[in-house]
């Protein structure tokens, strides 16, 4: 044991001995490290590769077979159409060929765009995971990489210019890994979080009002669906995701699974409040009660979307809670119902 401990030191070469250099000494070159401040142009967005984990299951085989057949069929149909048109008149054929080329170019670019959007989403997911790891292990190089990547992601947001510039000057300073992640979160995420909460609150309010006044259930169903989708898309764009159509599908899946995981816990903290809110509002009017419930649902969906789309975990800043985004909604709806205050107080007292 003892020998083991000594050995690396005894064998330590001259490089690890203490050394003193005069600044004008011959034979050495001397470079002072300035805090590395990089210009914004150097911080290009980093788009990570999509997950390599692609399983080729039966469903995959099925879908790729079907997709291949359908695209072959479509290609054949187009080909036939062009041939028919050529048979009819040459100029018609050329026009059709032109349209077909346009179609091909557009298809390819849509595919590329969707692919990029998907890659961006997964790079944000990867970023969040890396940030969590850096927080847990206090890993400075990793934290710096995460911060640089985020500076790139938020590079297109004009309102963050000042925060970005400040953060960039801190990159060279001696800050521990976990602290750097927290600092990044405070400077870059705080303004976005405020906007995100506002968006969720607005959407929830809109949904509850529309539900309350809509003449038919089908109308508010459609409206809720539409609002929820727009909300998710806007939140994702806000945090730098800009999802395409496929990205939206994935986002919805993530949000729903997140809701499924956290739903139970969230129910615990505010179920009582929701039930109470619903009960009072429902007593005033059934439609109003449905409005509140729909609004709360939208708010909850929005919170899940925030958790899924935000590129950093909530470490330095508190995560928005249901009461933050739904308070306006509940208060606005319940103000005409004076018994609420009394019930609330009673509920609280028994809880404490």
């Amino acid at each position, binding site marked *: *044991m*003892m020998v083991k*401990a*000594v050995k*690396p*030191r005894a064998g*330590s070469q001259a*490089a*690890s*001995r*203490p*050394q*003193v*250099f*005069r*600044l004008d000494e011959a*034979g*050495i*070159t*001397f*470079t*002072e*490290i300035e805090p590395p401040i990089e210009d914004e142009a150097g911080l290009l967005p980093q788009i990570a590769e999509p997950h390599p984990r692609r399983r080729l299951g039966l469903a995959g085989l099925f879908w790729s077979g079907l997709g291949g057949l359908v695209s072959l069929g479509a290609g054949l149909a187009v080909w036939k159409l062009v041939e028919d048109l050529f048979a009819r008149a040459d100029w018609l054929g050329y026009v059709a060929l032109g349209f077909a080329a346009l179609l091909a170019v557009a298809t390819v670019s849509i595919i590329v765009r969707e692919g990029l959007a998907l890659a961006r989403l997964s790079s944000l997911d990867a970023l969040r995971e890396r940030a969590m790891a850096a927080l847990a292990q206090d890993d*400075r190089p990793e934290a710096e990489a995460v911060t640089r990547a985020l500076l790139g992601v938020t590079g297109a947001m004009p309102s963050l210019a000042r925060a970005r510039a*400040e953060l960039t000057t*801190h990159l060279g*300073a*001696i*800050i*521990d890994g976990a*602290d750097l992640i*927290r*600092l990044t979160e*405070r400077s870059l995420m705080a303004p976005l979080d405020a906007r995100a909460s506002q968006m969720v609150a607005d959407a929830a309010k809109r949904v509850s009002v529309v539900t309350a006044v809509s003449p038919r259930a089908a109308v508010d169903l459609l409206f809720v669906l539409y609002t929820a989708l727009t909300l998710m898309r806007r939140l994702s764009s806000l945090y730098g995701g800009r999802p395409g159509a496929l990205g939206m599908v994935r986002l919805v899946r993530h949000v729903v699974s997140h809701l499924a995981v956290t739903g139970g816990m969230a129910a615990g903290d505010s179920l009582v409040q929701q039930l109470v809110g619903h009960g009072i509002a429902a007593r005033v009017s059934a439609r109003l009660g449905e409005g509140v419930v729909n609004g709360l649902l939208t708010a909850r969906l929005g919170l899940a979307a925030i958790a899924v789309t935000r590129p950093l975990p909530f470490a*330095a800043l508190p995560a928005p809670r249901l009461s933050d985004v739904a308070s306006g909604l509940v208060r606005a709806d319940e103000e005409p119902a004076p018994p609420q205050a009394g019930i609330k107080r009673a509920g609280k007292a028994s809880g404490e």
Partner: protein
Amino acid sequence: MAPRSRFLEDARIGFRAVADRVEDLARPTLRLGVTGLARSGKTVFTTALVQALRVGGRLPVFEPYASGRIASATLQPQPDDAVPRFPVEDHLLALEARTWPASTARVSELRLAVRHATRRGGMRTLTLDLVDYPGEWLLDLPLLDMSYSDFCDQSLSLARAPARREAAAEMLKGVETLDPAGPADETVARGLAARFTSYLAACRTERMAMSLLPPGRFLLPGDLEGSPALTFAPLDLKAGPAPPATLAAMMERRFEAYKSAVVRPFFRDHFARLDRQIVLVDVLAALNAGPAALADLERALDSILLAFRVGRNTLLSTLWRPRIEKVLFAATKADHLHRASHDRLEAILRRLVERAYARAQTGGASMDVVAMAAVRATREADVMRQGQKIAAIVGTPEAGQEAGGQMFDGSEEVALFPGALPADPQTLFAPAASGFRGMDSGDGDFRFLRFRPPAGIGSGTPLPHIRLDRALQFLLGDRLG
């Protein structure tokens, strides 16, 4: 101590705590203790802390400041009129003249009123009392539970340890020739106490850098110098109580006087009232001096840590016996290392305070370790020599420092590679002092020079630092929320 007087003592501390809490209601106050062994950088830290709160600076990690919530911090008259004030202005002038401020030889206090906005909005004022006291005094606290014969056993066995035997030779010779049962002669007592003191002082030099040197007030006597309470020394006691009017009886009486006149008032008036504590540790000096110094530092920290009553406060303990809720251990002078080694320095300190760490965690207190420099005296640079890149630091060594056969005049800048800290701190603590070589061997594994403060800093300008913001965030961040 007799049970009755112990009860009285506890009651006094308790009433003081209740009075403090009542005062808190009117004016929220946080008492922050700054301590550390000699030359660990207490004065510089306190000065830098005050300057950071008053003038600001580059403090991105200190959230209340970085988010612009601190409106102002002003110096206030301190609450205890009998305690010296921490002369922050003088220390800033010293830094401006590129010398390190004079060291802490006694307890001093400073009160700051920090006007700040809370996170939810609305202005508050937090009164911050800084209590700066020498860490040697903490080493005295275990004496409260010791009898004179315990003290003799412990200090004589320390003195006879191989690392100290040389410095203690004079004192041990004196002890061995004396008969504890001899007559109580003042001249003999003074002679022996002088030898004891000079032995303690010899252990403190840069070459030895020993830490565990109770009684602490012998090295920093202040106005008690020459009083009987500071004129005692350990004796080779025989078993059984000392007969009256012997030398042993006189020494024992003086030891008890030291406890009641020096240790207990400090505990009651200062230490028992702290809310937060930062312990500064100069790990680098111990590495400089060698394995014996490092082992001694470990023992000293251990006995310091025993003194802390740490843990989360309960409703009752908040009122009656408040505990220290947060303790930060800071390895100071991190600017003597390249940033790549800071984590390793932190790991070494973590290893040193391991046991205390575990204890605090069971008590519910929060505790952290940081490598920092309250005032950063160096810059970093890469030196290329013979195709090898060496990560060095650049600074102006103090006059009289020497390394690698060169003597510095205090005006020339040099680049220094101080040696590589091991990735695994455990290798430094290898048994039989084989982990590394100190300065005594003539070819130490580490050489940390003392650098002068950087040029161009002063009362009106922010001070350059390393991780001071992290320390502030840990110690004050939650109370400025």
